[in-house]
């Protein structure tokens, strides 16, 4: 099939796509967007998290055929032209990145959370990020990063 959908606000097209391949494969192997990571391919780890029509989803379990004419936002769409997004900066500054494999999925999940809920409680952060596993188990720093990102976004909104 010829797959057409919107990625990070731009129209994307790929030819000879098998409807059954995953959205994750399309992003990484056909569109050159390797930010979304491929770890478990079973919906368990969240490292492939993207937004599909605005809501967080595991790209590894979405079939390419299901994406036709829809909107996908990946971690590559977070940063501006030449500066990182507040969530990305917070992850760096809080030391929440170790091997970095879970980071892209967490960034998308955290961005999604902060959009729905700009000042989340700790239990809201934990519950929202429950679908993202970090094999380096740096969860405390990840919590710090999300709190920091929430504070900075609130500041940016005020100024």
């Amino acid at each position, binding site marked *: 099939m010829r797959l057409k959908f919107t990625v990070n606000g731009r129209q994307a097209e790929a030819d000879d796509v098998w*409807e*059954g391949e995953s959205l994750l494969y399309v992003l990484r192997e056909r569109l050159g967007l390797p930010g979304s990571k491929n770890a478990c391919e*079973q*919906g368990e780890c969240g490292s492939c998290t993207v937004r599909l029509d605005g809501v967080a989803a595991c790209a590894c*379990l979405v*079939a390419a055929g299901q994406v036709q004419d829809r909107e996908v936002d990946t971690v590559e769409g977070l940063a501006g032209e030449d500066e990182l997004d507040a969530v990305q900066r917070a992850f760096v500054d809080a030391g929440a990145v170790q091997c970095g494999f879970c980071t892209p999925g967490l960034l998308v*999940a955290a961005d999604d959370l902060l959009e729905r809920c700009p000042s989340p409680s700790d239990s809201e952060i934990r519950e929202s990020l429950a*679908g993202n596993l970090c094999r380096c188990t740096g969860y405390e720093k990840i919590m710090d990063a999300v709190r920091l990102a929430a504070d900075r976004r609130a500041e940016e909104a005020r100024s």
Partner: protein
Amino acid sequence: MKPFDYQRATDTDTAVATVSRNPNARYLGGGTNLVDHMKLGVSSPELLVDVSRLSSDTVETLPDGGVRVGAAVRNSDLAAEPIIRQRYPVLAHALLAGASGQLRNLATTGGNLLQRTRCVYFQDVTTPCNKREPGTGCSALDGYTRYHAVLGSSEHCVATHPSDMAVALTALDAVVHTQGPSGPRSIPVADLHRLPGDEPDRDTVLEHGELITAVDLPALPMAARSNYRKVRDRASYAFALVSVAAAVDIAGDTIRDVRIAFGGLAHKPWRATLAENALRGAPATEATFRTAADAELAEARPLSDNEFKIPMARNTLTSVLRDLTQQEGS
């Protein structure tokens, strides 16, 4: 994964006809269970008919005060629906207790009901499993059974049904509407799933090609006072060891009416009618709750690794009933 064809369904009749005439065709909802099984080799359909954008994705109030949930409504949208949160809190809680945000955003109401067991042997194609390959034997019988059934199992299969949502729907007397090769029909959710008996490969009473189109919740005013509690090995994002969905109608200190279903105990969501009968008309006391739980669990038979489930089910039911009956009138 084996190659397969994919079609996006545009109308119900064609979708039902297409899947019904091809024994190797399957419907595709959010794909969070089926696509996973295709990768694991547990399922190898030739044709997927995508119904995730076909059936209604709306939640509407019915003239009799009930609520109709379209089969394509996403788990996260259903949990957030104000009418569900206010009138059927047990359902909203059960949905939010399942999977993760990224999965609930994809999972559909129809697909959630028909998700298959998480028995590790069922998911591992290198081991014998009567559900996956009838007649090969059940690896769980001599295997690891922490997550397996204590009620209603057979010598052929001791798996449990994994859905949290289905447990709440069972307690609520919800009804599933389907469209099949022989026309439409309505099935109470409590009768949708089967016990394994000697056909463990059949999870439900649905025929091949039968499409779930909607789920109706009855008006049931007592559901406003309802809750879902799930006990699991970690605080979030794990399947139930035991879960309880319950709703009560209480007058003074007397239980006028009650609805209870257990998850994690059987091959289907377990409607606890014996416990309900013991509770109707009885005083709302700790002693009555325990007697009722014992009545339901008298037939429970543990496996090597899951004896703990019986006291856990009793304690969970008791604590859910305690909280619901002590709650201020709603």
